[in-house]
C-alpha cells in the first residue's frame, strides 16, 4: 500500500494462542514498538495454519506473511509446531521455486516470555518486506483498490 508516496507493507502474522500471541501481548505490556502494518490473527496452534490462509492473505493484498509458534519442544499440544515446521518449510520452498520472493514469508518461534523477540522480529520482518516492495507475484488484481 502506498501512503503519501511511501510504501507501507501489509503484514499478516498468525500467532499461536499459547506462546506467540502471549509473546505479542508481552511486547505490548512492555510497550515495545513495532509497525502497525503488522496485523495478528490468533490461532490455537501454529499447526492450525493452512497454506490456503497464507495464499489467501497474499491474494487479498498482504505483502508478507509470518507464522509464529511455540519453540520446538514447547508446543502446548506437544507436536503441533513440528508439523508446522515441515509444512511451512515445504510450502515456502515451493513458493520460492515458483519465483515468489522468499523474503515475504517467515516462520519464527516466539515464546510467551519473548516480548522483546516478538517486537524485534516484527520490526525486522517489516523492514525486510518494505525493502522488497509491493507483492506483485502473488497478487489478485481484482482485490486492489
Amino acid at each position, binding site marked *: 500500500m502506498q501512503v503519501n508516496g511511501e510504501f507501507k507493507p501489509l503484514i499478516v502474522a498468525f500467532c499461536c494462542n499459547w506462546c506467540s500471541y502471549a509473546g505479542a501481548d508481552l511486547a505490548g505490556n512492555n510497550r515495545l514498538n513495532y509497525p502497525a502494518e503488522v496485523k495478528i490473527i490468533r490461532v490455537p496452534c501454529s499447526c492450525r495454519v493452512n*497454506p*490456503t490462509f497464507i*495464499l*489467501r492473505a*497474499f*491474494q487479498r493484498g498482504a505483502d508478507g506473511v509470518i507464522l509464529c509458534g511455540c519453540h*520446538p*519442544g514447547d508446543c502446548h499440544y506437544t*507436536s503441533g509446531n*513440528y*508439523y508446522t*515446521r*515441515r*509444512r*511451512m*518449510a*515445504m*510450502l*515456502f*520452498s*515451493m*513458493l*520460492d*521455486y*515458483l*519465483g*515468489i*520472493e*522468499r523474503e515475504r*514469508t*517467515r*516462520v519464527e518461534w516466539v515464546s510467551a516470555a519473548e516480548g522483546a523477540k516478538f517486537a524485534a522480529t516484527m520490526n525486522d520482518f517489516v523492514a525486510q518486506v518494505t525493502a522488497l516492495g509491493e507483492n506483485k*507475484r*502473488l*497478487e*489478485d*488484481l*481484482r482485490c486492489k483498490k
Partner: protein
Amino acid sequence: MQKVTASQLIDRAAALLSDGSVSAVLGWKQGEFDYDITPAVFADEQALRDAFVWNDFCGANFSKYLLKATKKVDGKVLVFLKPCDTYSFNQLLTEHRFDRDKVYAIGIPCEGMADIDKVKAQSGDGIVSIACGETIQVTTLYNDAPVSVELADVLEERCANCKSKKHVAYDELLGDEGDVLDSARFDEVAQLEAMTPDERFAFWQEHLSRCIRCNACRDVCPACTCEKCVFDNPASGVENKAPANEFEEKMFHIIRAFHVAGRCTDCGECSRVCPQNIPLHLLNRKFIKDMNDNYGEYQAGAEVGSRAPLVDFTLDDPEAADVLDRRG
C-alpha cells in the same frame, strides 16, 4: 517393445474369469486409432478377445479405477499393474481407499510408454496405423512407406525418467521382476532451482498461464480421491471453475501439489493428460525432492501403511529458513 504380450494377458485373464477367481477385468481397450486407448472393464472372455490391447500406448494407471470398480463389481476385480501403477495401488491402500480383498492384481513388466506427440514429431501427422513390435511402425497419410520409430526415442517423460521397474504390490507377476532405478527425475527440478527467482517466475508464469482448469490433472491423479475436492466446494472459499487470473492459476496448482505432497507416487499421469502440456510433474517432484533432501528418502506407495513426511516429524527437522538457505 513390451516384454509380455497382449495374448499372454488375455489368456491369463480369461483363465481367471472362467474359474471364477475374478469377475471382471480392468484393462486397456482398443481405441479409434491405434494409440488412443481407453481404460475399460471387461466382463467376459469374448470382450477381452475383441478389444483388449497391451502395447506401447497403454499409459493409463488403473489404480484409481479400483475405487469405483471394487464397489460396483461383485467378486474380485482383476487389474493389470505396471511397476509405477503398483506404487499408486499401495498408496491408495494406505489411505484405505479400496478393499484389497476385492482385487486380484497382476504385475506386468513395462518397457516404458510412448508419447504420441513425440511419435508424431518423427512420423508426421495423419497417422493411419501403428504397429508396435521391435520398433514402432507408423503409417501415415503423408509418407509413402511406414516410418520406423524406436520406443526409446519417444518415451513419455515419466518413462524416460522411470523411477522403478519393480512391482511393489501384486498377487501374481507375469514376466520378470525389475529393479528400483537410479533415475534422473530430479535433474529438471534442480535446473529450475539453479535459476534466478525471476527466471523461475517467468518459467512458471508462462506454463501456468496456459492452464484452462479442465481438472484433468486432478481427476486422473490417483492421490486425488477426495469425496469433494476443495476446488469444487463453494464452501471452501477457494472454489472456482476457471482460473480467473494469474493468482488463481498458481493457487490451484500450489494447493493441489501440497495436498498430494507425501502421497504423490510420481506416477506422472498429471503431466501425461494435461492438454496444455504444463509440466505439472515438476511441482510434485519439487515436493518429493525437498522431502527427500530434508526428511530422508521417502517413496510414497513403496509400502502399505508407511507414514508420509508431512504427517510425521522428527525433533531435529530443519527450520523453514534452513531448507531455503541450504539450497542457496
